[in-house]
């Protein structure tokens, strides 16, 4: 297990950015909002779509320092509506890098997300409605460590229902939100950069994320705990995916301290255990301190 630490550098960087940003949305924030631009940890992997982008410096005892970068940028491009539904299209680019020798990662993705939301347009009075959040993603992927270049696609489903806290926090001082999700994923890779064989994989994925604001009233929403579990069941593996385990899983836990009222900048303590085949993240157990940035709205 690896741990962190140039804490002073992180705090200095965080305070500098927050001083520049202030508590009020800047013209830069306004520009992002007007153009529907969002910055997150990942837009391909929906379990991290509400997590801020993160830059971490990892300094293990007795080992070499390493850096991780997880950033995704998307821009709202096209949208529309129909009876009982609404949709939008978001082109995106994301980059994930880890320089640690044992868990190297260098993945660039570019593509789009298309979101469709459905619900009963005429629910009975006073009755909470189930909404259905479907997302279709397709991306070009350049994994310079494992699989080379290729394409990936996914279709995911998330139910929304306030009484069960599905994607809703509720009210009160202790707040929590559950986000369950199922997805079908497919990926094809060739040997252009990583020297691996061509091949493909299809995956079934199930995940759940728990977001907790333990002291909402007393500390506003400045303290956030995120716990996530994702599991992939790999089918029809070939080429660079042939050595993938049949079953892969990832557990993550984050404690984020937001440095401004709009939840744009944060210091985060992150624990990761497992592997993430979608982002090319190798099997690892890491604890890290990160500077985080979530732009384009806190939601």
């Amino acid at each position, binding site marked *: 297990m690896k741990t962190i630490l140039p804490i002073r550098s992180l705090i200095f960087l965080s305070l500098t950015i927050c001083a520049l940003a202030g508590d009020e949305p800047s013209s830069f924030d306004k520009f992002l*909002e007007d153009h*529907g631009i969002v910055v997150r940890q990942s837009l391909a992997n929906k379990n991290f779509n*509400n997590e801020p982008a993160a830059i971490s410096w990892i300094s293990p005892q007795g080992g070499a320092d390493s850096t991780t970068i997880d950033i995704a940028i998307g821009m*709202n491009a096209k*949208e*529309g*509506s129909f009876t*009982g*539904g*609404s*949709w*939008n299209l978001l082109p995106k680019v994301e980059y994930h890098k880890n320089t640690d020798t044992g868990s190297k990662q260098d993945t660039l993705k570019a593509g789009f997300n298309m*979101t469709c*939301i*459905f*619900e009963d*347009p005429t*629910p009975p*009075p*006073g*009755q*909470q*409605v189930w*909404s259905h*959040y479907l997302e279709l993603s397709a991306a070009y992927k350049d994994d310079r460590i494992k699989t080379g270049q290729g394409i990936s696609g996914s279709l995911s489903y*998330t139910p*929304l229902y*306030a*009484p069960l806290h599905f*994607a*809703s*926090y*509720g*009210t009160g001082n202790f*707040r929590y*939100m559950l*986000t369950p999700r199922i997805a079908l994923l497919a990926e094809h890779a060739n040997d252009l950069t990583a020297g691996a064989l061509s091949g493909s994989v299809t995956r079934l994925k199930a995940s759940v994320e728990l*977001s907790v604001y333990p002291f*909402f009233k007393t500390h*506003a*929403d400045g303290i956030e705990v995120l716990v996530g579990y994702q599991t992939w069941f790999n089918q029809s593996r070939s080429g660079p995916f042939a050595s993938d385990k049949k079953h892969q899983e990832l557990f993550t836990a984050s404690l984020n301290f937001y440095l401004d009222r709009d939840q744009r900048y944060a210091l985060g303590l992150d624990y990761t255990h497992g592997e993430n085949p979608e982002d090319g993240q190798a099997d690892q157990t890491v604890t890290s301190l990160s500077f985080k940035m979530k732009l384009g*709205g*806190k*939601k």
Partner: protein
Amino acid sequence: MPTAAEIKPKVIDAFTHKVTLSYDAIEALVDAGNDDMFADLGMGGQPIDSMAISLTQIAKAYAGGVPVLISSVRKCNTVTDCIKLTTRRANGTKSP
């Protein structure tokens, strides 16, 4: 030409389907100015996106009404913002 006062109860009713608060509780929050969708109503980002559907239903019930799109709802922080947005869309104003 629908007014904000006419649209307000319809929008509040739309919120009663997405949160566990009653109509009266939401109205009280709106009147007190404590109607942040995240902080006061406890909504996550996806339920806020889904408000585009019911707000579109309200806006398009008026002649000349245009859809309320997801990107517009994302710019709203409060129920009051949603009332203003829906009123503009019900009057056929496409942007902002």
